[in-house]
């Protein structure tokens, strides 16, 4: 309990008639790299703005190091933000941008100069002090924005999709750099992204958000390998969602009947029983495609494409439902229109949406 640096308690927020946040409860540990992951409009940026003080919650509390800061102005909080579009002051040079927070704290000028120099070294921008923001590249602007937010030594650094505007290669490099920086400084990073790869690469913990609620909080391994809901399974793991009914249980193995056939799934005998409807998530790379196999579903290959070293296939089941399968390398055997069977190892099928059968959640 003592090591939680930031705590959100029952945060609710609506804009007009649309509810953006619907009861956010979260404890963030000191020195943690935590990522809010969700598609656009899920409320992740609003959550960040509430923590920064740029937005007031309708209900709930923001507690920073044991102090309730809910009603405080942004300048009264010990958190700093890296904005999505950098938000550098266009009329100030790099040095003035980075040193602005220190100037506000009435630090003597030589000291500001020293600190700015140090932090610019840290983000590898030494010698850029006199440049104006418009003379910098996207990646450099991003570094200035990070330096500007870090110079104040905030308790928590909030980063709102900071790498969104950069190209893929630069983004990958910056991911590593940010992670290194965070480890070195030991500052708590609260990172926002809609890119699951980014979240998995950088985070200690991931918070998956959907429609104003937290779907799942866990380590990258937990959310990727053990998704709790179909939304998490599809958003983080690119999983296929299949619904079916348990018709037979043998130890931990159950036979599940879905619309076009029967398939084996590993279940928890204490929670599942015969006759129960369940939702199963199977990641694309775990879908097996074979010409003849047992306990598989007859299907036909509809589409195939190759990208990022992966072959991606869209396979249609007999009832028209589409299954996405992917594997490394090019498999020249599969042809569009070819009749195949799809299946998966029972252990690769993950039961999701266990507690509540919430129809509002994104389904396949």
């Amino acid at each position, binding site marked *: 309990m003592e090591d939680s640096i930031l705590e959100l308690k029952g945060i609710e927020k609506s804009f007009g008639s649309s509810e953006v946040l619907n009861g956010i409860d979260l404890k963030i540990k000191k020195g943690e790299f935590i990522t809010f992951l969700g598609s656009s409009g899920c409320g992740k940026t609003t959550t960040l703005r509430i923590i920064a003080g740029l937005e007031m919650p309708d209900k709930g509390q923001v507690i920073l190091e044991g102090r309730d800061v809910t009603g405080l102005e942004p300048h009264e909080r010990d958190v700093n933000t890296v904005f999505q*579009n950098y938000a550098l002051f266009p009329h100030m040079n790099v040095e003035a941008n980075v040193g602005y927070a220190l100037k506000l704290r009435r630090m003597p000028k030589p000291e500001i100069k020293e600190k700015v120099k140090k932090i610019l070294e840290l983000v590898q921008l030494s010698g850029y002090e006199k440049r104006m923001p418009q003379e910098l590249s996207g990646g450099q602007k991003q570094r200035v924005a990070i330096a500007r937010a870090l110079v104040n030594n905030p308790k928590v650094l909030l980063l709102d999709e900071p790498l969104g505007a950069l190209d893929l290669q630069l983004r990958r490099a910056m991911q590593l750099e940010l992670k290194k920086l965070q480890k070195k400084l030991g500052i708590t990073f609260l990172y926002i992204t809609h890119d699951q790869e980014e979240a998995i690469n950088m985070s200690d913990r991931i918070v998956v958000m959907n429609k104003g609620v937290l779907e799942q909080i866990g380590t990258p391994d937990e959310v990727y390998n053990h998704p709790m809901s179909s939304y998490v399974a599809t958003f983080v793991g690119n999983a296929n969602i299949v619904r079916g009914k348990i018709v037979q249980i043998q130890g931990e193995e159950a036979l599940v009947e879905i619309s076009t056939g029967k398939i084996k799934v590993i279940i928890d005998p204490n929670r599942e029983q015969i006759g129960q409807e369940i939702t199963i998530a199977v990641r694309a790379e775990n879908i097996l495609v074979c010409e003849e196999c047992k306990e598989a579903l007859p299907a036909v290959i509809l589409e195939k494409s190759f990208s990022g070293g992966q072959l991606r296939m869209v396979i249609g089941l007999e009832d028209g439902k589409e299954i996405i399968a992917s594997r490394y390398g090019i498999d020249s055997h599969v042809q569009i229109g070819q009749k195949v069977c799809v299946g998966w190892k029972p252990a690769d099928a993950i039961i999701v949406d266990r507690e509540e059968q919430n129809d509002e959640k994104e389904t396949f």
Partner: protein
Amino acid sequence: MKNRTKLPNIYLAVIMIIMYLPLVFVVVFSFNESKLTAAWTGFSLKWYQTLWHNEGLREALWNSIVLGVLSCGVSAVIGTIGAIGMARVNYKSKGIVEYISTLPIMIPEIILGMVFLAFFSLLNLPFGMTTLVIAHTTFCIPYIFMMVKARLVGIDKSIAEAARDLGATQVRTFFDITLPLIMPAVMSGCLLAFAMSFDDVVISIFVNGPKLNTLPIKIYTQLKTGVTPEINALCTVILITVIFILFITSALGNRGRRTDKGN
């Protein structure tokens, strides 16, 4: 191909001549020696000399400058605050309020002038510099309001938010961030408003009172006794001043646009 490009050029030339020939005429004849404006008798600067020694005109010029500076100053404050305020709020009647704010430059001047005359006599305000400043401020505000409003649209809201996030109060954010960013717009709005105030006859003539003359009124009343080359000389001076002001305005505008590219 050649014929295609010729016609627009001829058209352009004709329009330019029609528009600017009278101006050229005035400038040229301000250097004419003869008192008659009809015939050229030789080059001379004597009309500029008599202009310089004309007490009445000099006083009127001074009045016009004071009036322009005062009304621009007052409307700069009102117009800027108004534009910033309008950018922050978001209610349904916002569009109407904005429209009303720019109305003074769309109402015919003669009507505005009459309205001011009636209103100030109703209030028993002594006609003079005060009434002139009030009237001029009214039609100067929209220029500054519109300029600043347009500039604010181009400024990313998160820039001000970043300042607050870094520890600046709202007031500090205004002076450190918002004001420097909108300053080019405020300045060019002011210069435009000044140019409008400086050459206004219609509204001024209703509210200037018996003793106080502004430069345009002075010129206008002098014209009744015939055009003298002295007036030509004066017009030339004003023309050069206005061109100079407009040049500065557009230079400021360009600078503002350049800093925009920062984000």
